[in-house]
């Protein structure tokens, strides 16, 4: 079983042009933690969505703030925290996604949060000294035993 590793902390300007870098780092961290390429792509998507939420909602598009990402390989799971010091967004206020209603009402919001929830094993929000923290956890796949 792999042991925990020191966490990687990354501070990124609150601009959408940095989403590609966030995605690349997440994918690499996921693969280093033992996820396959497809799972790593999905984790990268979830972190992209969380970071986009920070830029668009917590910072309301302000480009001069910081997003702090913390990647923590805990051995059996990978935890990614996305923190900001902007406005707190209450996830309970994000509407549940009903695709057919979305289409008829021409709504487009809330899909990102829905995706995060579908990809990760848990998505929780809290406030601490760093500000608002979105904590996403994905359990690692069980390793196959070596063939006898």
């Amino acid at each position: 079983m792999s042991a925990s590793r020191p966490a990687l902390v990354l501070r990124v300007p609150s601009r959408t042009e940095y989403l590609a870098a966030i995605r690349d780092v997440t994918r690499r961290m996921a693969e280093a933690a033992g996820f396959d390429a497809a799972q790593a792509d999905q984790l990268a998507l979830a972190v992209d969505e969380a970071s986009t939420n920070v830029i668009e909602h917590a910072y309301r598009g302000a480009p001069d703030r910081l997003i702090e990402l913390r990647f923590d390989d805990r051995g059996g799971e990978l935890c990614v925290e996305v923190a900001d010091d902007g406005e707190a967004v209450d996830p309970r206020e994000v509407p549940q996604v009903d695709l057919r209603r979305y289409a008829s009402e021409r709504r487009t919001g809330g899909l990102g949060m829905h995706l995060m929830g579908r990809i990760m094993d848990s998505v929780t929000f809290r406030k601490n000294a760093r500000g608002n923290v979105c904590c996403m956890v994905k359990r690692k796949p069980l390793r196959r035993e070596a063939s006898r």
Partner: protein
Amino acid sequence: MTELSVDSRELEGIVLLYPRGFINAHTVRLFEGEIQKALDQGQYRIVVSGAGLKYIASAGLGALMGVIEEVRTNGGDIRLADLNETVRNIFDILGFNHLYRIFPSEVEAILSFRGGGEAGSPPA
């Protein structure tokens, strides 16, 4: 670095869009703009041919959601083709496979507008 380009062409009244790269909050305006161009010209039969699409985030899915009702009200549809596994998985996770017809190839998507090629995933 250009993260997204979107080529387009028209074939027998069908607009074919070829996004190449990544669609997310940073690049989605370009994708939306190309869809809107088609709608502004009264063209409501659209195929998004995704062979060059590496990744799509909710912003891109929202762009499709934002116009699909208008497109279908006008007798058209947005159909998807040739999606790689990563992109296809994202559509499946969100349940978009029940809302959009997805075809293995661009040709099948085009033919579906002529009443043939029923191989795509029909909306439930």
